[in-house]
């Protein structure tokens, strides 16, 4: 239950009528709807929420938003999904929420690794890198791998990565908007109001559960005569009522890319106790915006003083947020330590909520202004020229030790004040992350003592605190102006609505940078700069003593700013410390690069729908379902599923493939070749285009005849092959390899548009128009004959490498007489919707004839027995037509074709090029490994080059032995020679042979 000492009686934006039960480290707590995990725990008196990364020091939340470095928790969702490293300040509680602390063992209150804190002099900055330099006797690498890394990885770290698959799904949405406004604080809301009033389509996103930013916790200011919160309600209601506005709470703009492309991560259901299973957990918005307004606000800076990291020490504005927004007193007795006026407002808010604010200690000598006056009037003691030199307390701060600053800058130890809450404020750092991600310049402002947005690279502008325009009235006006400009640049005419009247405490937003002065031994105190990575002021000073000057190097050496919070609270303090230590001005030290994501993003939201069955399209042919029914084993060929073989009961792959090969050679086999790429080349210059693209001559090819085409790249190397038929004088049906179809079409289209625009010819992909059924084997003609109409199948009327149009089973067909097996063969092309029916009709005939269906594996064996190449298997991008023994395909009389000039380069004509040959093993049972190297000697001397490699290797049923194809240097001259294939254990002796193992004269082609 909320502790009455820590939960205010009224106020805040929580719903006190809706208690919410949750557990943290197994213990039950109750908060209210609207609480974050951090606010609910604080309301129960719990500040200790985590252990630090390196020293395992007890830590509590210092912030109230996404910049929180300490309070990282693991959350188990309603469906069992575990998410580590969530910021407790952003986790919205729901009934049944299960959260655990991280990086502690055995418990949060007692952590064995806290011993690191005692040995901290042994863990200096650069410690991680220094472990690389291990004892040389072991070998540094071994020491690293076997000793240091496992130990460090275990001891240091964040939460555990979940072991189970992510049970959630993630949505994705592309959207275009006229104006994207990032951040829904006063500036962002004003920008969205102004831009939408002009008629622009506006998206307003904010990382928080509620839109409003600082207005959600502002109990002091009034807008248009009303409390700020009331004005906010009205403004949001107005925006929500505009059809041209999309409001996206819980939505982090995490990446800013080229052309005003911004990625947003929306948390859709993480805050719900029992979300509908059809709702996505998160949604990725990919926004293309004409104009962007960045209203990302500013982040309060911690003060860097000794022991500034105990639970109970938090940023002043975070405490104010907890009081005003969540009705939580973060403590009962508070001390405020500040160098900025805004902390006085926090002091007032806490005092208002009943917290005993004992002192405001101000680093500045003479705190003045409206806020300080109001604090003094409220009876709170204000001490100027005062610093904090240390704190007490183990699991929570119990006392603050003060020191007085003398005029000479010395620190005189002062009183100690007991407290359970210490607020700190070093001033404000504008959030320039997204501006920087957009490639906009970031420039140091002496005046603001901050980095501010400079020159723009894209159509974006910053408004409000993120560009150093602080204060409510100023932010509202700046936001409205930015919204108007954005709308105007997006093509709309903005109106000049007056800015609202604002009553607020006037104050300065300046603070200090770097470490606070103290009188203690700097080597013995820990004043944290980067809380999440446990980097202290001393570590940064050490880095500069070790010679690091650039902040990029200091960052990597000390790891400051490299944690998951990317140094949101620490970067500028670190810069200032390095600046002071090196006596270089801040801009000379430089600024590290802001990279996406602004806050950690789940892999799930990046993957979106692209997982499981939707990871990639699974392309199947019209005959696929038949193969599934027949129990085919499939293989992936690109995105295609192809039947690899059709095992019968009791058959393994070897037996099935042997049977399929045997049947095709003895009788007839049926193969689904639908995946073959197909391009319809049409136009009076169709033959001319092919003439220029392929090595072969095409002009004289008669309609109804086919030719095997070979395609080279400009370098003269084979990149694709396939049979093309001339359908009519102005029409070719070109086939490509399965994997090469899109590439070949794109290449031909490219040449057509850029090199040969004068040609009257057009390309259309017809790969999927046709189902292709290969019927191969001596009985192929008998099988097809009764099904075919209008085509004379007799050999003399329909020779090998011819194509006829007619009908099969009553539907139109382009019937090719081609063979990839060396047998009498046909490829039946029918429109794809008819594919399965025609296949089944042919299949019945095949069954009657005693044939079978075969898969791609048998296809490979059958073609290898004939020495037919497969592009990508016998070729590797360095192989010419002549290397493959395909020099005959080149049209010798042709003036030109793609790659022709390269074929006469000296290297292409040199003796000793690798050539395609067959290999026969001494032991016929030995099947070589594809890819195995080939050498002259059985036991080659180290360093002696291989002569080539095995490209294809199979058991050949037809040969009664193993066969292999290989690329071997000077291979054709070596036929008959014995070479060796060294394998583990022993080398395999092979004899170089012709690549054609079967029917070298091609007598089987006519059946």
């Amino acid at each position: 239950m909320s502790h009455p000492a820590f939960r205010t009686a009224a106020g805040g934006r929580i719903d006190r009528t809706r208690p919410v039960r949750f557990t943290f480290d197994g213990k039950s707590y109750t908060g209210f709807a609207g609480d974050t995990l951090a606010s609910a725990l604080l309301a129960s008196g719990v500040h200790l929420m985590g252990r630090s990364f390196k020293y395992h020091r007890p830590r509590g939340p210092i912030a109230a938003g996404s910049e929180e470095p300490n309070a990282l928790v693991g959350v188990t969702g309603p469906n069992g999904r575990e998410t580590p490293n969530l910021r407790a300040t952003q986790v919205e509680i729901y009934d049944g929420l299960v959260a655990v602390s991280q990086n502690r063992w055995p418990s949060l209150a007692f952590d064995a690794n806290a011993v690191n804190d005692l040995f901290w002099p042994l863990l200096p900055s650069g410690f991680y890198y220094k472990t690389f330099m291990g004892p040389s006797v072991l070998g540094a690498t071994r020491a690293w791998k076997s000793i240091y890394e496992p130990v460090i990885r275990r001891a240091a770290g964040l939460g555990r990565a979940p072991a189970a698959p992510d049970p959630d799904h993630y949505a994705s949405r592309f959207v275009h908007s006229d104006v994207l406004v990032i951040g829904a604080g006063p500036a962002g809301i004003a920008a969205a109001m102004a831009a939408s009033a002009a008629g622009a389509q506006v998206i307003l996103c904010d990382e928080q559960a509620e839109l409003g930013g600082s207005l959600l916790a502002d109990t002091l200011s009034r807008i248009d005569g009303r409390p700020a919160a009331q004005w906010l309600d009205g403004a949001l209601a107005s925006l929500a009522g505009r059809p041209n506005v999309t409001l996206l709470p819980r939505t982090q703009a995490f990446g800013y890319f080229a052309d005003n492309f911004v990625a947003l991560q929306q948390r859709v259901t993480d805050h719900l106790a029992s979300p509908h299973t059809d709702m996505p957990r998160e949604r990725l918005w990919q926004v293309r915006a004409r104009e962007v307004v960045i209203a990302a606000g500013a982040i309060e800076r911690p003060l860097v003083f000794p022991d500034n990291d105990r639970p109970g020490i938090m940023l002043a504005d975070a405490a104010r947020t907890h009081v005003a927004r969540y009705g939580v007193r973060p403590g009962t007795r508070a001390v405020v330590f500040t160098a900025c006026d805004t902390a006085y407002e926090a002091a007032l808010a806490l005092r208002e909520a009943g917290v005993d604010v004992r002192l405001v200690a101000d680093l500045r000598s003479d705190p003045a202004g409206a806020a300080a006056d109001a604090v003094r009037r409220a009876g709170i003691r204000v001490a100027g020229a005062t610093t904090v030199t240390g704190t007490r307390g183990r699991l929570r701060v119990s006392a603050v030790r003060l020191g007085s600053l003398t005029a000479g800058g010395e620190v005189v130890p002062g009183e100690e004040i007991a407290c359970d809450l210490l607020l700190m404020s070093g001033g404000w750092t504008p959030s320039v992350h997204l501006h920087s991600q957009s490639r906009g310049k970031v420039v140091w402002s002496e005046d603001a003592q901050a980095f501010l947005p400079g020159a723009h690279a894209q159509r974006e502008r910053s408004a409000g605190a993120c560009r150093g325009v602080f204060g409510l009235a100023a932010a509202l006006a700046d936001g409205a102006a930015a919204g108007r400009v954005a709308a105007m640049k997006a093509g709309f005419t903005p109106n000049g609505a007056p800015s609202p009247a604002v009553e607020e405490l006037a104050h300065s937003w300046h603070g200090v940078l770097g470490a606070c002065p103290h009188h203690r031994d700097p080597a013995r105190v820990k004043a944290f700069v980067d809380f999440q990575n446990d980097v202290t002021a001393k570590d940064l000073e050490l880095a500069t003593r070790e010679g690091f000057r650039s902040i990029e190097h200091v960052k990597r050496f000390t790891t400051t700013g490299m944690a998951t919070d990317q140094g949101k609270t620490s970067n500028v303090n670190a810069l200032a410390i390095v600046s002071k230590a090196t006596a270089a001005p801040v801009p000379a030290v430089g600024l590290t690069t802001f990279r996406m994501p602004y806050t950690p993003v789940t892999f799930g939201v990046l993957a979106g729908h692209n997982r499981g069955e939707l990871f990639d399209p699974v392309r199947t042919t019209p005959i696929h379902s038949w193969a599934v029914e027949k129990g085919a084993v499939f293989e992936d060929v690109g995105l295609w599923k192809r039947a690899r073989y059709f095992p019968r009961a009791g058959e393994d792959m070897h037996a099935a493939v042997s049977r399929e090969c045997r049947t095709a050679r003895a009788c007839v086999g049926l193969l689904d070749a639908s995946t073959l790429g197909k391009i319809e080349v049409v136009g009076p210059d169709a033959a001319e285009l092919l003439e220029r693209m392929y090595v072969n001559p095409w002009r004289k090819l008669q309609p109804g005849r086919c030719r095997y085409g070979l395609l080279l790249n400009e370098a003269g190397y084979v990149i694709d092959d396939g049979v093309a038929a001339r359908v009519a004088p102005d029409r070719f049906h070109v086939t490509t390899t399965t994997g090469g179809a899109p590439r070949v079409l794109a290449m031909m289209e490219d040449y057509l548009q850029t090199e040969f625009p004068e040609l009257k010819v057009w390309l259309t992909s017809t790969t999927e128009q046709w189902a292709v059924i290969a019927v191969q084997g001596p009985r192929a003609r008998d099988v097809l004959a009764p099904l075919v109409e209008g085509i004379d199948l007799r050999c003399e009327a329909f020779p090998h490498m011819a194509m006829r149009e007619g009908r099969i089973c009553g539907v139109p067909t382009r019937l090719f007489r081609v063979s990839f097996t060396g047998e009498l063969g046909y490829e039946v092309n029918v429109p794809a919707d008819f594919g399965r029916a025609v296949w089944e009709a042919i299949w019945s005939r095949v069954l009657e004839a005693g044939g079978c269906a075969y898969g791609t594996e048998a296809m490979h064996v059958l073609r290898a027995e004939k020495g037919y190449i497969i592009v990508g298997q016998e070729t590797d991008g360095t192989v010419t037509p002549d290397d493959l023994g395909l020099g005959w395909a080149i049209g010798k009389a042709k003036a030109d074709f793609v790659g022709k000039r390269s074929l006469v380069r000296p290297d292409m004509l040199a003796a000793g090029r690798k050539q395609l040959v067959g290999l026969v093993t001494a032991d016929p049972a030995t099947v070589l490994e594809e890819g195995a190297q080939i050498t002259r000697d059985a036991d080659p001397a180290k360093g002696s080059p291989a002569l080539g490699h095995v490209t294809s290797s199979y058991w050949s049923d037809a040969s009664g032995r193993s066969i292999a194809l290989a690329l071997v240097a000077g291979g054709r001259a070596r036929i008959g020679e014995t070479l060796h294939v060294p394998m583990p254990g022993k080398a395999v002796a092979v004899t170089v042979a012709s690549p054609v193992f079967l029917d070298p004269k091609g007598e089987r082609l006519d059946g």
Partner: protein
Amino acid sequence: MADVALRRPPQIGLALVADERSVRLEAIDRVSRFAVRGDADAAAIIGRAFGVALPTEPWRAAFDGPLAALWLGPDEWLLLAEGGDPEAISAEVAGAVGGRPCSWVDVSHRNAGFLLSGPDAADVLNSGCPLPLGLAAFPVGRCTRTLFGKAEIVLWRTGETAFRIEVWRSFAAYAAGLIAEAAREHAVPAA
């Protein structure tokens, strides 16, 4: 072989969705389709023979009853005819075109056709299509070749809340599956 003449469109499994409040995905079968390439003169002749003029305005679809002509490029159109005999249509057009240089290719079986309709249709498409699909940017009658996830599609807005999708047949199951997945959240009743 009368049974063979029945076209068997690509199978897309259980992915068709029908939720009257959000989106509905229906397959459109038995469509004759033709890829046309050529110059404006050829296009004009083909349009007269086909029965609907081929648009010359970019991204414009013209239709007349069951016939539609979609502009895909300066010299490229996709013609659609609900039902119809592709061989007969091809023969008629070929007769009209004569020897004029152009390309007419029957791609009736290359594609699968879908109609996606309902108030959330554009949002569902925008889960995988990067184009702006608001009525101002993509009005009724606009068509284009675009991406939907990892598939190329031709998209034609046939009504304020209705889109015709043409996709190569082997990508049809993927496209329908992606639509079904994206549609899940839209069928959830508002809390």
